[in-house]
């Protein structure tokens, strides 16, 4: 047998181990990202959930880049991200929302307590639109460009450090 052949098993094994080490060192990201990023918004037409605020349809979202916030009154991280959303609104960024599995009175209370950054709120009672968007939980925030294409997905609550990123993404989408 050729001598170098004897080293082949060791070489194969070393390669496998190198690969495993690389995998081990990689920071893990368990987030489930939407496959819809880079694609146009799915077609939907959601009724309003609170009086005085219009519902949300695909057509409403086109024309101007904006943020689409997926939230619920029963969601604690949504309370945590409310001040950041108010900051984004103060920067002149239009924000629409989809309320997931919620009721009118609960939303009214939530907005009264945590502030109301939203232009429109759609009522997604059985998560149909949320699933169509590829969103796996609340809160999530999508950046939509003027043509209605999803350009970015932010999973989880918006922290202070995320505000600049989202604003930049919105500006880039113009």
């Amino acid at each position, binding site marked *: 047998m050729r001598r170098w052949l004897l*080293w082949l098993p060791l070489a194969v094994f070393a390669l496998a181990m190198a690969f495993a080490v690389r995998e081990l060192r990689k920071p893990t990201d368990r987030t489930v990202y939407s496959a819809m990023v880079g694609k146009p918004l799915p077609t939907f037409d959601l009724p309003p959930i609170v009086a005085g605020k219009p519902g949300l349809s695909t057509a409403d979202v086109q024309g101007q880049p904006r943020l689409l916030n997926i939230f619920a009154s029963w969601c604690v991280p949504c309370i945590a991200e409310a001040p950041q959303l108010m900051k984004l609104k103060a920067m002149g960024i239009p924000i629409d929302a989809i309320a997931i599995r919620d009721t009118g009175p609960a939303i009214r209370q939530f907005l009264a307590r945590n502030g109301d950054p939203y232009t429109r709120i759609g009522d997604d009672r059985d998560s149909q639109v949320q699933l169509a968007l590829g969103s796996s939980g609340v809160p999530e925030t999508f950046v939509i460009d003027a043509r209605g294409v999803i350009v970015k997905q932010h999973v989880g609550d918006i922290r202070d450090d995320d505000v600049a990123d989202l604003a930049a993404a919105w500006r880039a989408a113009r």
Partner: protein
Amino acid sequence: MIAEAGLVALWLAAALAAMQLMLAALAVSRNDDTLARAARPVAVVQGGLALLAMAALIRVFLQSDMSVALVVANSHSAKPWLYKFAGAWGNHEGSMLLWVTILGVAGGAVALLERRVAERTLTATLGTQAAIALGFYAFLLFSSNPFARLPNPPSDGQGLNPLLQDPGLAFHPPTLYAGYVGLSVAFSFAVGALITRDVGPAFARAMRPWVLTAWVFLTIGITAGSYWAYYELGWGGWWFWDPVENASLMPWLAATALLHSVSVLATRDGLRAWTVMLAVVAFSMSMLGTFLVRSGILTSVHAFAVDPERGTFILILLSLYIGGALALFATRIGVVRAGNTFELVSREGSLVANNLLLSVILGIVLIGTFYPILAAAMGTQLSVGPPFFEKAAGPIALVLVVVMAAGPLLRWRRDTLGALVRRLTWPIVATGIAAVALVVAAGWFNMLPMLGLALAAGLAVASVAPLAGRNLLRTPLFVYGMVVAHLGIAVSLAGMAASTAFTREVLVAKAIGESATVGPYRVTLRGIRPVIGDNWSALEARLDVQRGDGSTRLLAPQSRFFSNPPTTTSESAILTAFDGQLYTVLGQPDGTGRWQLRFWWKPWVTLIWFGGLLIAGGGALSILGHWLRDRRQKKRAIEAAEAAAHREAWAA
């Protein structure tokens, strides 16, 4: 107290393993017999201490000592005692402890029993075994301590996964682990023999009973696990090709190849390098299997991050042992003198073919198991499912069946094709008849199961053929072992092919009093009633089952609710007939008074596990046969020596 005692035993065992390693290393490098003799008792005591630690863990589980973190996480005081007992290894830390316990006990047994191999090689073997044990003791003590206490003990535990609350847990992991870890002895022997450059028939004969024993345990463990998954998971499948199953199949494939090549080395002094390589591969596969999979690293890449410390530890250990052995192989095997050579058409030739085919199947399973991780690293999420494994490994397995039929009918060293075909006449006739009968009786159906059934018939005839023309009483037991094991493969193959080809499945929603037909059975839903168990409650369907005009039998599948932790499981109800099983599962109510019911008629499915037991039984017969022959030969040698001494005394 008992938890601390267990921890102390574990530390002492680790210290003894370190001592055993140093003694062996010094003894081998200085060629010192006194030091070598000291290594044996150390190995025995080390095994005993590991056993003590395992016993301590079982004791705290039986006592439901809720100050031990592991008990809290995996047990509950209301659990039946059997699951408290078996729950000791139904978790990561406990199963690792079981693993090193079996490793220590196996090492102790080698030290106690092995007398055939050269002393220096045995010492090197014990040193290797100690090195493996030391690494895994360190893993347990530094990153997976099963005896860790909680500062504020809760009043009760979180319970054991209900899927594991089955008698299967009591024997499946220990048998499987005995198989995995038994292969460590083969690995240590191979490394020991490489260190002392002593690869030959004596080494193979010393290794053979360990390989066979490990293989028998693996076979039983896999067979039992397959049946457990079959009735417990409620999907009616007997093999799912999931990573954990593949992790047990890979060492089995390697061990099967190994035990055949060990035979060639022991009887004909051939295949030296190949046998050593397989011994290394077989145990490497066990380690990969137990550690990468059981610690969650393989099933999901995410588990790397769950505990990167453990992952790193395991990787370092695997690199040291497998990498070390492979490096030793590369540097030393060239020095090992080539063994005897043989012709292509010969018993050896067929065993080489068997080894190559098994290795190819092993490679396919390995690639199929690891490819999703590789792909995930490249950024694609995918899973490799049964279609890949069946399409890729199935045809090769069938070729292997043909080789397996021919192999035992070949002579050692040299034979002719003509003679082989003559000896294979009856198996070929049986295959042909079975194929024709199948087409006539069932029509043309799926190619692979059809071939499988026909070849199973041929293999069954071929496997008993070596007994033809022999004096059955004087045939050695290990020949019977081979016959029974090969017959077991034929039986199992027939079961797999028949159940794949002819299974009938029905999913219905039925109100009480309505009935459905599946295969030869008519099933009537008689009622649904609640049932209370030890730590669960259930809805139980009463199904009247009737075959033709036969008597009515009652089947009662359940949908069980466990409260700790809250989970629902399906307890299937199975009716075993001589020619197959009726498998019933109770599903959800549909809200209008009807219940989802799922029935399968699985013809001859029981043959799969019966065949598995035959295979294991064949292995056991072979161990016994070799042991008896060794004993007889030893006795004869002693008698001959005495007779010689006697003659000399008279001559003098």
